[in-house]
């Protein structure tokens, strides 16, 4: 174990997997200079046959990923910002997600697409989206949302070795954060959530970039006497429904936080799943904490108004917290504001 930054953990996984399998190739815009940090050093080590800059042409790059995979390579396509998923969407939706079934199981699609998502940097509407929800609806695409350096490394290695297309979603604002990362062979299985914090009163599912504010919220809520269990699903497809349902069975309450927009977010899907399969254990309505159905504005004050943070999460948790907590303490009332039921 060693402490590493999120972005360095990703870099380490790329190095190890390219070392391990000569069929792994990387391409994308300006990957050689590695401006996003994650590909740093790959060119010097592996050369331009293995990592190559492309022109700006996302519609073609996603199609090329399909073709190169069909022809026998393990492809890593770097799309830079997750908004550019939209630019490359046709081959993602019509080829990558469908090739295997359409070919009667002949085609294998060992493709990993890397894209950085999320707001908070005053990058405005076209560079700040959390663009995985449309991918969730395609069917044939895996989506990994690592929140910690260790999971970033382990999930990326699993993605690269897998035979199905995976979008590896980098939490944009988290690249510099540090955490313990196991050396060498460290594989995190898909579809396996982790309990990031145990608790009895309420289940808080936090996706990717939302894990950090969720843990901060849980800490504050503990002071208020609300014991929150924080679950990080780590992959959205496949999704560890069992872990979330087991937690909700224990707590009876669910808040899901997701930086994507509310409508058809991953949070919506998780809420629907628990409403369908865990209804009997629910003691309160489910709450989603998401970006509202707006695009990300440029001005920092407007941006922080729409992107959820620890405060938003605390408010949502207090709304459905058990009455035995000091719900009406001065601090809780301040935090809950006018959103308190009956207030």
């Amino acid at each position, binding site marked *: 174990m060693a402490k590493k930054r999120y972005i360095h953990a990703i870099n380490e996984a790329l190095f190890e997997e390219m070392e391990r399998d000569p069929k792994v190739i990387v391409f994308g*815009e*300006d990957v*050689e*200079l590695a*401006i996003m*940090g994650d590909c*740093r050093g790959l060119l010097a080590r592996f050369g331009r046959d293995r990592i190559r*800059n*492309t*022109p*700006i*042409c*996302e*519609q*073609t790059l996603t199609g090329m990923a399909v073709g190169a995979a069909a022809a026998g390579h393990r492809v890593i396509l770097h799309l830079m910002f997750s*908004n*550019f998923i939209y*630019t490359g969407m046709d081959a993602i939706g019509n080829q990558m997600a469908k090739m295997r079934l359409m070919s009667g199981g002949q085609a294998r699609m060992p493709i990993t697409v890397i894209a950085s998502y999320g707001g908070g*940097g*005053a*990058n*405005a*509407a*076209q*560079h700040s989206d959390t663009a995985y929800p449309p991918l969730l609806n395609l069917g044939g695409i895996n989506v990994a949302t690592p929140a910690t350096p260790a999971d970033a490394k382990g999930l990326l290695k699993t993605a690269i070795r897998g035979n199905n297309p995976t979008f590896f979603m980098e939490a944009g604002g988290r690249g510099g954060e540090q955490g313990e990362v196991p050396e060498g062979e460290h594989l995190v299985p898909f579809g396996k959530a982790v309990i990031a914090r145990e608790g009895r009163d309420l289940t808080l599912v936090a996706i990717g970039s939302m894990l950090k504010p969720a843990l901060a919220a849980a800490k504050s809520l503990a002071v208020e006497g609300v014991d929150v269990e924080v679950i990080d699903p780590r992959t959205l497809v496949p999704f560890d429904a069992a872990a979330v349902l087991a937690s909700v069975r224990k707590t009876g309450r669910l808040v899901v936080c997701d930086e994507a927009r509310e409508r058809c977010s991953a949070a919506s899907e998780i809420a629907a799943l628990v409403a369908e399969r865990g209804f009997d254990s629910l003691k309160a309505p489910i709450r989603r904490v998401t970006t*509202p*159905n*707006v*695009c990300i*504005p*440029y*001005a*920092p*004050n*407007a941006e*922080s*108004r*729409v992107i959820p943070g620890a405060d938003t999460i605390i408010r949502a948790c207090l709304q459905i917290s058990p009455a035995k907590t000091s719900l009406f303490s001065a601090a809780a009332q301040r935090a809950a504001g006018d959103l308190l039921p009956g207030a």
Partner: protein
Amino acid sequence: MTRAAPSRDELFALYERMLLIRRTEERLRDENKAGNLPGAVHLYIGEEAVATGVCAHLRATDMITSTHRGHGHYLAKGGDLNAMVAEIYARRTGICRGMGGSMHVADFSKGILGANGIVGAGFAIATGAAYSAQLAKEGRVVVDFFGDGASNQGTLMECLNIASLWHLPLVFVCEHNRFSEFSPASTVTSGQISDRARAFAIPTLVVDGNDVAAVWEAARAAIERARDGRGPTFIEAHTYRIQGHMEAESLLLGGQHYRDDAEIEGWKQRCPITSLRKQLAALGSVEVSRLEQIESHIMARVDEAVKFAVASEPADPELAFSLMFDGQQP
């Protein structure tokens, strides 16, 4: 195509507009360095002759599409300086009320259909606008500004085809500044870009993008042609990006280099503004004092714009909700 050179007064007007763009962006560069701007800025320093020479021929009702490097296009098309600077400062008085920032400055009332953060997005928007202009038969023309890097998006070819087929009143202006982010054009772009237009039977003009008179002449012919209903033209203007891809790019590069300092210095010697200033100053002492007046007038305007921005209220966060739709809640 008829040829004509800009008159002395026209040259002064071109000089003034280029200098406005330059001094504004030098100030933005400094404000960015001082940490006063919330978002990233991509500067047009060194490339001013292109937008200026082209937009000199446009009417208020004509339209342009722009790029992530859009301050110059906006100012050349007559966008308000104070409102642009206030936008970049994320103020309520900004041209997009603080919702868009540097990469999205737009003034639809002046035909500025927006800077754009999606590289290559302008092609289809300009083509659609030109289609609309053609249907309306009011003699409006559309100019699509884009980079050499953007030329590699496939939609360029799709738009060239439609524009040629339908004789759209559209001028494609490729600003070949030799870089696509951090990739030299030679490493990501094959052939001569304007040849792509020739394949669709669109006339092409390759010009020195650091010579404002040359750009002015080429654009005059192209815009006249579009206005007369004779269809699209493709201008390839060769220039150079003096600043980084974006300000503070060294943070992304982590000590790596993608171009030589000597190359940058060489292009600084070919500054479009300096060379025009020399040409005008050589005309006599009256011209010299006119140049000095322009300089001090512009410095005052830029100062005032920054003061205006700083004194303005921050953006109204609730606009993120009320502006999503026209007359509808998000």
